[in-house]
């Protein structure tokens, strides 16, 4: 009983850590990117300062807004938090990770996105509708690719539960699986598209020709905007943690001891920091692409995921001798 309680407590703490660390990751990416572009980087804590500033300001709600506009930030944030509680960060086999699998995770992303899109259209401005329609286009193409990548993992691990899948990868040790390489590449492309980074979307600008996420949250201010931004940062971290913990789960805690958790924290920090460097590098190297080319990009992600699935079936098939 005490063990159970400890495990639940740890799961809650882990989720809080997840939510608390998300702005830090965003700040780190920004810092690396500034360095690469020879600009003077802001402090690592700048995202926290921005959130605090937004929190203090009075939120202004446009006149034609309905209740959807008001509850959307809470739903978006809550779905991000729920998703964060499912994804193993420091340890596997926590109680929250056992109750929901990866398909639920995709569903939670979809829930948050639905309300984001509804809020974008709620005001009736041209920008909001444009951003919403673009977001839906992109997500309808990105979701199959993500699910396919996830199914590749599930076929290898014989489970859709994230925690058990990570356990499986940990148990089998280092193996050069072609299917995992393809699935990881596919998931990385999907992550870039879904979190609105360059080359699909540029979160740092307000250029009406290309913006997607910004267009949807354009009418938000104060606390609401803070929640939206924070949810976006959590989503970015979610994808990062998914990539590093599914495909390279080494270091993650198997048992619940302080030493193992400390190792897990150090490992996941290091891995995320490195992944962020890769992301920042790709953002510095590639230009934002035209909106109409995004479908090509996402079909490439889907192709990678399908190839992952195929190479799981073809190349990793158990070899039967006659």
């Amino acid at each position: 009983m005490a063990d159970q309680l400890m495990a639940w407590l740890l799961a809650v703490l882990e989720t809080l850590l997840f939510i608390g660390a998300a702005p830090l990751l965003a700040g780190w990416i920004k810092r690396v990117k500034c360095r690469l572009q020879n600009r003077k980087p802001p402090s690592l804590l700048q995202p926290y300062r921005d959130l605090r500033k937004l929190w203090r300001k009075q939120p202004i709600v446009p006149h034609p807004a309905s209740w959807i506009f008001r509850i959307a930030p809470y739903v978006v944030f809550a779905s991000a938090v729920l998703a964060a509680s499912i994804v193993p960060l420091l340890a596997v086999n926590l109680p929250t990770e056992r109750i929901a699998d990866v398909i639920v995770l995709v569903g939670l992303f979809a829930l948050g996105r639905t309300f984001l899109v509804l809020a974008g259209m709620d005001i009736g401005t041209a920008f909001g509708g444009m951003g919403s329609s673009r977001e839906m286009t992109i997500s309808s193409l990105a979701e199959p690719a993500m699910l396919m990548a996830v199914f590749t993992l599930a076929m290898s691990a014989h489970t859709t539960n994230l925690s058990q899948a990570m356990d499986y990868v940990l148990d089998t040790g280092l193996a050069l699986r072609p299917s995992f390489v393809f699935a990881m590449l596919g998931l990385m492309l999907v992550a870039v598209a879904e979190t609105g980074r360059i080359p699909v979307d540029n979160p740092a600008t307000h250029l009406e020709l290309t913006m997607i996420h910004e267009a949807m949250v354009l009418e938000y201010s104060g606390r609401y905007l803070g929640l939206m931004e924070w949810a976006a940062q959590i989503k970015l971290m979610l994808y990062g943690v998914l990539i590093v913990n599914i495909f390279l789960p080494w270091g993650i805690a198997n048992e619940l001891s302080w030493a193992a958790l400390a190792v897990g924290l150090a490992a996941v920090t290091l891995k995320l920091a490195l992944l962020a460097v890769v992301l920042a590098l790709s953002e510095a190297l590639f230009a934002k692409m035209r909106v109409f080319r995004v479908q090509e990009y996402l079909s490439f992600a889907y192709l990678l995921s399908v190839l992952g699935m195929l190479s799981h079936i073809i190349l990793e098939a158990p070899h039967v001798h006659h």
Partner: protein
Amino acid sequence: MSITDLDYYQQAVLLLAGLIGLTSFLMLGQSRLVRLVWIFGLQGLLLAATTALVAAVLDSPHLYISALLTFCLKGIVIPNLLNRQIVRLGLHREMDTIEHPARIMMGGAALMVFSYYVSLPVIAQSQLVTLNAVAVSLAVVLLGMLLMITRRQAMAHVVGFMSIENGLFFAAVVSTYGMPMVVELGIAFDVLVAAVIFGVFFLHIRSSIDSLDVDRLSRLSEAEEK
């Protein structure tokens, strides 16, 4: 025996096989000729790396020679030849339009599944662990054919033809410890000569129809087009 029971060399061979399959798909979707040739060169390099690895796995030293040969010919010489021709014929800025890219990709995936089913009985007959890659090599052959079918540019046809040869070579490497050295040398130089002859053909096609678009070859005409 699943992939986790194999040693790292064999896993690496399978991984490289997967990457070779990927390059075939990339070629199928690439409309710029220069990049098409570049990806073809990449496939040659991956093929050379796979051959070297298979040589290490199967402990057959003559495969190192054919790896070196592949590296030089398919990785460096032929892509360079083709690229020079592209630049000389002024095709390096032209885009080869691909009609229905999504359908072609789906067709490619279907071909890969098909080649898996075709090669299943072959795989079941053998003791060789790298044999799972036979399906990929057959897929590379079929994807090369698909590339030739779906393109208009004669240059893309040549790249498709060469990648068919890559697939055959790959099949030989993973399934039968490589071909005899004489055969291998013969094929390597055949391909090299083919690359040169294609260059002559390009000049002829171009001088007769003023383009390398083979769709314009569908009509027979002795007289000057008016």
